[in-house]
């Protein structure tokens, strides 16, 4: 296959699909209780310099209790796949990210991310490699399929491709020009789900984003769940299992684990809290103060929820937000 063009972005995490097979072969397949705290999961499974990824979009199913713990433990020089809003902002503000495979880092309705701008424009984030959403998702899908790359038909002709690590080739079957994106195998994946059992079987309600792909593309997978249920609940509805237990290494019970993000059918996002962050993030000092108030100065997720307060969480659960936008009348 002739390579017509090579993106000049760095391939931050070169895939080794045979090593991935060996790794997956050795993963424990027994039904073992994998429940543990955020602190234990992060300290056992995430290391300085690891390539990690979170599965969510915007503020939906944001694994915030895990991300806050990463910040507390100061896991640094992280390489990360970025398709996020709140969780990436927090990691960037804490100065823990060294390299980014990114498609979108921003605050959606609130616009450009202040910390992302500061960290990239200052050069503190050393590497930004550009991709489209489909490219990132299909990179994870390639890993999930167990192949070294997938062909696709976007990115072509643009600077997005030029600053990616994709390649343009001539299709050996048709002669057409195609973009190839390399498989992305994560050291650690983080996914927040609606419910899991102690072994790691997981269900998601509503849209599933790219949870199925990221889960299967992760060497180590940490799941946090709104609630832990009995395995029998899965055996009664096996069609609902999006992540089977053998993919999963740690299971964390984290009610309101997505806060200030949302969980569909369970609670809406906390607009006031998000606005507090957006305001704080305008300046490096106030961003740090936010982190001290809500992350560094807090022992764990339970204490965080205590700080947010039962009353506010009840409102979010009932679909009431205390202010616009997104609020009920």
């Amino acid at each position: 296959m002739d390579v017509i063009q090579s993106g000049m972005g760095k391939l931050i995490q070169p895939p080794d699909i045979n090593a991935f097979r060996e790794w997956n072969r050795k993963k424990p397949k027994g039904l073992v209780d994998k429940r543990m705290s955020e602190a234990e999961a992060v300290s056992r499974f995430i290391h300085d310099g690891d390539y990690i990824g979170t599965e969510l979009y915007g503020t939906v199913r944001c694994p915030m209790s895990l991300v806050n713990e990463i910040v507390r433990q100061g896991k640094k020089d992280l390489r990360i796949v970025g398709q996020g809003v709140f969780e990436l902002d927090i990691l960037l503000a804490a100065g823990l990210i060294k390299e980014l495979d990114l498609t979108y880092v921003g605050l959606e309705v609130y616009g450009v991310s202040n910390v992302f701008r500061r960290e990239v424009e200052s050069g503190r984030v050393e590497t930004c490699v550009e991709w489209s959403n489909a490219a990132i998702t299909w990179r994870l899908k390639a890993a999930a399929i167990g192949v070294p790359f997938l062909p696709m038909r976007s990115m072509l002709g643009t600077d997005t491709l030029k600053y990616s690590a994709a390649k343009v080739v001539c299709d050996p079957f048709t002669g057409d020009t195609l973009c190839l994106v390399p498989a992305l195998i994560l050291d650690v994946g983080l996914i927040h789900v609606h419910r899991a059992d102690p072994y790691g079987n997981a269900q998601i309600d509503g849209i599933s984003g790219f949870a199925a792909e990221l889960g299967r593309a992760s060497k180590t997978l940490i799941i946090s769940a709104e609630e832990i249920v009995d395995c029998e609940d899965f055996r009664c509805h096996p069609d609902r299992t999006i992540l089977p237990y053998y993919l999963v290494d740690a299971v964390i019970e984290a009610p309101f684990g997505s806060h200030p993000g949302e969980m569909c059918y369970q609670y809406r996002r906390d607009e006031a809290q998000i606005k507090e962050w957006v305001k704080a993030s305008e300046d490096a000092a106030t961003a740090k103060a936010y982190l001290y108030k809500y992350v560094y100065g807090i022992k764990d997720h339970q204490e965080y929820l205590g700080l947010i307060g039962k009353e506010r969480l009840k409102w979010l659960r009932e679909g009431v937000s205390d202010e616009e936008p997104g609020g009920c009348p």
Partner: protein
Amino acid sequence: MKNPADAPEYNPTELLICTAARLMPDSTTAFIGTGIPMLAASLAQKMHAPNLVTIFEFGGTGAIFEELPIAVGGECTFHRAIAATGICEVMEAAQRGFIEFGFIGGAQIDPYGNLNSTVIGDHDHPKVRLPGSGGGNDVGSFCWQTIAIMRQDRRRFIEKIDFITTPGYLNGPGAREAAGLPPGTGPYRVVSNLAVLGFHPKSKRMMLLATQPGVSVQEVIENTGFELALADRVEENPPPSAEELRILREEVDKFHLYI
């Protein structure tokens, strides 16, 4: 914005929404992002296009809006929807040719409809780092017809943009096909606060089709940083009707999150 005699008043955002809504026909598929496209889709559904199938990239397909989503993964993006799937299902459908319209935007646009939402300045030493492609590049590559929604001035509509995040007609006729993008796709309209623009069938350069109410052709030209082709007859876009504005204010965005 003041209008003649008894015509209702409206703000520039309301004008963009109403203009974009009129471009969406019934019983078709449209790739929708948050913000103006979503409001336009909702307005179109309530006016003339009840069977407009809205598709959100995180998996929401065919929602009927009651509340406005503020995130493309939010629950409202699949409220009473046909399907709640995932990003692969949506991107694969787009790549297979199932999605007719796509809405895109950016900080800069060039005469060929290429868009920049990545950086101002040099990529590796940016003056301003912007969010990046997100699904923009995919929408601009896969959808049959794309509609860009932008505010128009000489800093945004420029001859050479700093970074091509999302493909328009690249550098002219035949360039998309030569790059390997699916044939027959590309920019269809640019909706701005000043005009509705299309693309010249031969040169693929941006062409003024209609001015927004109260805006002169000269004003559009003065607010465009490149040579603008003119349609043989430049139309004047009718202002938002009282009915459009009522539905927009009372039903589509009743909490005035955007308008």
